[in-house]
Structures are given as C-alpha cells and as structure tokens.
C-alpha cells in the first residue's frame, strides 16, 4: 500500500514539474474584442487572418 502511495506521489510530482516546465508567453490583453467572462480560468488570445 505504501509503495502504491509513493508511486502515486512521484507521478504527481512529475506531472507538476512537467506543467511548470511549459513555455508560456506573456501576451498583453489590450482592448481587443473579447468573448467570455473576464475572470475565466482560461484566456485564449488568437491572432487571425480572415483570408
């Protein structure tokens, strides 16, 4: 049982470390058109070309 818990903790730690290692860009929000609540958990900023 203890081994199972230990393995689970190692996996959890590895997943946290992997998440922390993701490259993130700081993109200013500006006053561009927005859809969705300002306090949403996810902010998606899309650069688009209609053609």
């Amino acid at each position, binding site marked *: 049982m203890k081994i199972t818990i230990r393995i689970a903790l190692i996996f959890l730690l590895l997943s946290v470390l992997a998440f922390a290692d993701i*490259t993130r860009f700081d*993109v200013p929000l500006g006053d561009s058109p927005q859809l*969705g609540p300002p306090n949403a*958990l996810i902010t*998606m*900023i899309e*650069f*688009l*070309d*209609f053609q």
Partner: protein
Amino acid sequence: MEEYKGKIRLILRQYPYKYRDYSHIAAEAVLAAGDQGKYWEMHDILLKKSPKLDRESLISYAAELELDMKRFTNDLDTMKHLDIIKRDIALAEALDLYNTPTIFINGRKVIGNRPYEYIKKIIDEELQHAEK
C-alpha cells in the same frame, strides 16, 4: 467550445498577412462592424465566406447584418482602424509569429490550424491545473 462556457475568455487580435489581397480590408470590416456592435457576427460571416472578402462582398455582408451602410463603407474606405491593426501586427511581430491562426492558451503557443482534440487537450490540462 460550448462545453467550456464560462470557463474561457477569447480575445481576438488582427494579423492580416501583407501579401494577401483581402486580409487587411477584412480586418477593417470586422472592426468596423464591431463599432456597430456586430463584431462577432461579422467574424463568423468572414470565416464562413473566406476567401470571398473583396470590398463588394464585405459590403454585402454588412448589409446582411443591417449595419449603418454609410458609416460602414466610410470606415472601410478610410481605413479607420488602421492604427489598431498596425498595433496588433506589431505585437504579432514582436512575438515572432509567422503563421495564422496562432493561439495562446494561458500563454501556451499553438501555431496553425489544429484539430479540435489537440486544443481541447491543452484546455483540459489548464483547467485541471487551475482547479487544483
């Protein structure tokens, strides 16, 4: 994205490719429609009708949305939103973007058209992390 309603905020920035005939005027059109409260409606039409984005087509889409046509046409022809578009382009270039669409999901860069499942996986990871 309906399944994520209330959990996602979507922000759009214009990045018209300079060598495409109608990219810039389409960006002008969506912002001009936005001035009249119809940004997202025009956005949806342009995605659906692309690449038919010449001036006359854009004007016909504005008419479909029952915009003030005199105002819309004037905005289009005077490139009223040039400064906003230039600002977005400058930001895109500063971020070294070379493809559209490019999406940042909580700062994670996703380049080009990707399958829904690919985007969904990132969103789910971000939600899982945020909700911990």
